[in-house]
């Protein structure tokens, strides 16, 4: 959709499915120039459109979900009813147009409706076809469907979050879906590169559960080799001490105020002690070495917390960073919109959505100096680009389009 040349210009992507895991891959590809078509049906829209707030002004509507919108910027949207005669043929025609097809349904679903890899490959032999789901396409529990929020528990993330003797904690939203999307995206582009060199297509089977394991690789390896089971331990670190969150004097209107800090050697701790006005702590036997500080963590945290509660998070962090001590305010979600570094990176790109109005879309943490990427458009309304995609992209005639529209396929 961009006027400026982008790295992925000309790459054509079709998405079948919905929610987060599939569409987030398409969003990232679109941000670097790919042409991404999100396929839905009027009677089965993307689940995020139907039940997921926020809705601007609290008013629901199929095009008013801020959740759907947030994950689908820079794309085109079409509607195809695969249950109507001609629906499957139209879907296949769209798949034939594509370089990449991404689907995130339960295993077996796309095959049942006739849009599996084997079906598409007949007419588009070099397509890169990615299936992403909870467990992967094979294995004893392949058929499991489910939400990423719960899969994040199976994959170990929730159990590693919380106080040592407390309950596991939720991570916000379908955490593991975004893990899998980011692990899957380089794979898709690697397959495209191979195809460009060799003409070979690919069927890519991504298990979100396995992708989750890559984010815990060291902990899993430590168990396999040393038998050590990583456990949730609040904010403690096996090496660094201090290493925690501390409450600050409230100055921001948007919620409670905390900062985090950590010290990775004795010299850094000495600098911290200086900043908090207690230089003697660096020589205090309870805190002089990393091992001693870990041992006396609670007493140390109380001393540091005594200092932070008199400071705003910004005051404290400015003093600490000036002294070369690892630290940062605990940004609330609101704070992400005023953080000066995030502003510098331009991670929020405001685009005007037809029904939602101005919305801030996330631009990834990846900048290319010469082809930087962008949020090129707001998220599409349902079926917004039927005419453009079917006529301009697929080359459908006016008569054909009208026929399919009248038949309820489009």
């Amino acid at each position, binding site marked *: 959709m961009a006027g400026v040349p982008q790295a992925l210009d000309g790459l054509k992507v079709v998405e079948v499915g919905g929610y987060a895991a599939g569409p987030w891959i398409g969003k990232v590809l679109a941000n670097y120039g790919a042409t991404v078509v999100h396929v839905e049906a009027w009677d089965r829209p993307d689940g995020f459109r139907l039940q997921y707030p926020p809705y601007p002004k609290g008013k629901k509507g199929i095009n008013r979900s801020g959740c759907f919108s947030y994950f689908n910027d820079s794309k085109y949207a079409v509607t195809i009813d695969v249950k109507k005669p001609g629906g499957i043929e139209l879907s296949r025609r769209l798949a034939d147009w594509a370089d990449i097809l991404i689907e995130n349904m339960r295993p077996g679903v796309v095959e049942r409706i006739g849009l599996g890899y084997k079906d598409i490959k007949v007419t588009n032999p070099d397509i890169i076809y990615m299936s992403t789901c909870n467990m992967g396409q094979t294995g004893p529990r392949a058929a499991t469907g489910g939400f990423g929020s719960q899969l994040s528990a199976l994959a170990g993330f929730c159990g590693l979050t919380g106080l040592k003797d407390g309950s596991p904690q939720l991570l916000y939203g379908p955490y593991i879906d975004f893990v899998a999307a980011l692990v899957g995206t380089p794979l898709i582009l690697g397959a495209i590169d191979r195809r460009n060199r060799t003409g070979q297509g690919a069927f890519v089977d991504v298990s979100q559960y396995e992708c989750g394991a890559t984010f815990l690789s060291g902990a899993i390896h430590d168990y396999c080799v040393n038998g050590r089971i990583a456990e949730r331990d609040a904010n403690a670190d096996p090496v660094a001490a201090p290493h925690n969150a501390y409450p600050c004097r409230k100055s921001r209107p948007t919620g409670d105020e905390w900062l985090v800090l950590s010290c990775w050697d004795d010299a850094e701790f000495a600098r911290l002690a200086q900043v908090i006005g207690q230089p003697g702590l660096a020589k205090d036997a309870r805190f002089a070495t990393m091992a001693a500080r870990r041992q006396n963590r609670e007493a140390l945290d109380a001393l540091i917390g005594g200092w932070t509660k008199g400071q705003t998070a910004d005051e404290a962090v400015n003093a600490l960073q000036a002294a070369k001590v690892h630290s940062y305010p605990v940004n609330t979600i609101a704070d992400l919109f005023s953080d000066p570094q995030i502003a510098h990176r331009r991670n929020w790109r405001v685009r005007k959505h037809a029904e939602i109005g101005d919305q801030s879309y996330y631009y990834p943490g990846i900048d*290319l100096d010469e082809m930087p990427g962008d949020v090129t458009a707001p998220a599409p309304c349902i079926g917004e680009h039927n005419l453009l995609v079917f006529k301009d992209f697929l080359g459908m005639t006016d008569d054909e389009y009208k026929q399919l529209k009248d038949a309820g396929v489009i």
Partner: protein
Amino acid sequence: MLEPYRVLDCTGRLGWLTGRFLADLGADVIKIEPPGARLDEPGWRADNVNKRLITLDLNKPAGRDLFHRLVAKVDFLLETALPGSPEAEVFDPAALRAINPKLIHVSVTPFGRTGPRAEWLASDIELMAAGGAMSLAGEPGGMPLRVSYPQSYPWAASQAAVGAMVGLMKRNATGTGDHVDVSAQSAVIASIAHAPAFWDLLKQNPSRAGAFMTGRSVHGAQYRVFWPCKDGFVNFIIYGGVAGRRTNEGLCAWMHDAGADLGVLATIDWATFDSTQTTQAQVDAMEAPIRKFFLTVTKAEFLQQAFEREMLGYPVNNVADICADPQFAARDFWHDLPGENGKTERFIGGFAIVDGKRLEVKRPVPKAGEHGHQVLADCGLNKDEIAKLMASGAVN
């Protein structure tokens, strides 16, 4: 897939996984470590398997010269030097692109290479705080928490892998490389789903949810998510809707089969149950028998029954549970290599299955000094040059 490409991987922890992803995709990844680096840490080993290794002292002129010769011979350079540090000068993008205009140079740093806080010090806990993730984890009103295994590093490293591949596509299209600047803080924002949209559109500031699901019931009732079971916890929620109906009916059938007391659950018609209209007292009454029942169930039993009865919900696994899960074994996910003292060293395998075959881990974890000669020879140095460099102590 990436067999034609060579990668110079000079990363610290922020970028280890980037090189591992590229290696699993088939690239020849050469890890560079300074003399004396620790190679026995589990995280290092897990993320640096499938790479070759050379020890290179970038502070020595001979080491620096060699580095430049290697840069000329590779497709990708991955590095994590903190802006403003002496190492960052070694990785000056313009200077390295002058040596190799086709180079795809990926910098992974806490906050990106420029900006008001680019030089700030940050480890995982600071990055999880800076990206908003900590504000959403922990008990409501309690202390913000991080995940007890660093997550900001893989969030940054995976975005860097995307950036590396986007850079390759750019090179394919234009013939020239690019500098890819990855900010870990910005990458962490991807972990918090659409939470930012609530502030953006409604000026609601999402905060810590703890162990309960809120915001479903119009009466403000909260639903339990984490339940103690016989040997840990399970994640289960009384949902409404079609999926909720199947789940709730499945659970009641399971409790019935197990001879458990269903209590008030026996009286509920799940076809008409509406989870948005319940009061806290009603939720508490429904949850009481479930709580009692789950205390008699193990994590493994829960996983199996939930699967068979098509219920939503999973046990809260730890790494031991993950490693024992037959789903991974069935998909050939584990990669075993001979380790120290005749023991087997197990790694997670390639991260996906392509055309029915798992991405391959071709190389064991490299040892110091193992690949020095071979890498230098592959990069076009002759025997005499290699011998001289080895004697200088700048490389091994």
